[in-house]
């Protein structure tokens, strides 16, 4: 076994010495209108940019990255940004338009504390949702949509997603 003194300080993350903070959240977004692939990508990209801008407004010195992963019953979309000057990008496919989006977002930012990263992330989500007539139905920190059986029906698939939120409740 390697001498543990070779490994860094385990009391706190190395990144805290460099002013880097991270925040992760899972949300369920629902729209009355169905949303096609392009619209979902536009919303995801806008969300990434909105969060990045809010982080900078709160005093961030740099955006490490802001990443999102959007699950639906017919495919996934990913979107991310590394800073307001760099734009945001998305990829992925949806087989058909959807109303429900299960979104996980990770924001890693330098120069502001975790509470500020959290505030910017949540405000960014709500701002873009509001602008697009989308409801933030559920919101849960440190939760992810992890277990899936993709052979299930779409109704059962959605139930799995909902169960992940409940699992988060039980843990807390």
């Amino acid at each position: 076994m390697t001498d543990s003194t070779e490994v860094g300080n385990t009391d706190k993350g190395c990144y805290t010495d460099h002013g880097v903070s991270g925040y992760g959240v899972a949300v369920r977004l629902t729209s009355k209108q169905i949303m096609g692939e392009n619209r979902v990508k536009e919303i995801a990209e806008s969300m990434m940019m909105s969060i990045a801008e809010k982080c900078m407004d709160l005093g961030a010195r740099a955006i490490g990255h802001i990443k999102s992963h959007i699950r639906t019953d017919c495919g996934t979309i990913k979107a991310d940004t590394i800073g307001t000057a760099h734009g945001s990008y998305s990829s992925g496919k949806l087989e058909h338009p959807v109303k429900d989006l299960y979104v996980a977002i990770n924001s890693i930012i330098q120069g502001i504390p975790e509470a500020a990263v959290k505030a910017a992330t949540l405000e960014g989500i709500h701002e873009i949702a509001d602008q697009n007539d989308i409801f933030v139905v559920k919101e849960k920190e440190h939760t992810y949509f992890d277990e899936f059986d993709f052979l299930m029906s779409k109704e059962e698939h959605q139930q799995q997603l909902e169960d992940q939120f409940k699992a988060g409740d039980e843990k807390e």
Partner: protein
Amino acid sequence: MEITQIAGFLGCGKTTLLLKLAEMIADGGKRKVALIVNEIGEIPVDGKIIEEGGMTMKDIGGGCICCEVAVTFGKTLVGLYKQFNPDFVLVEPTGVAIPHQVKSAAKMGMRDAKLTVGAAIVLFDATRPAELLDMDMLGNLVVNQLKDADYLAISKIDAVDPSELEGIANRVKEYNETAEVIFISAFTGEGLDQLAKIILDGEG
């Protein structure tokens, strides 16, 4: 079981590169490749993206594998060895990890697994050299990563003017004269054969 880390600051293209290299090294199933992804921020977004690529993947959350969850990293390597015994393990540390500490953490698995700790390939984002190097706290972190590199891979070269590349290479060489500099683009594929060969040959 050869352990190679694909390190580098946040947003430099580690996940995209990891997936491409894993496919190249696996070569249609000729070799067994496993991936370990570590993220701060609680939610393994990268891990989910990689899983969709069909690779054997372990994600480690709850902190950084170079410090907070180093022991978990060592145990994960042992678990992979016992369950899958892959030929190669590609590790994506957090974007703030210090590569030599990741190597030390990997060596913790040597007691219970036959493994070799290979190269630290450190990516540097060609699209934002000044942003990464010219700020005090952040610059120190990025410089420490560059110093630890066995190979310096300047990434996203498709997104910058080719005339800028030599200047970027000279800047990173200021911090590490011995590491070979490789220009790569996960988008065009440039430089990836060279990186795959480094991993396959166990250089580092």
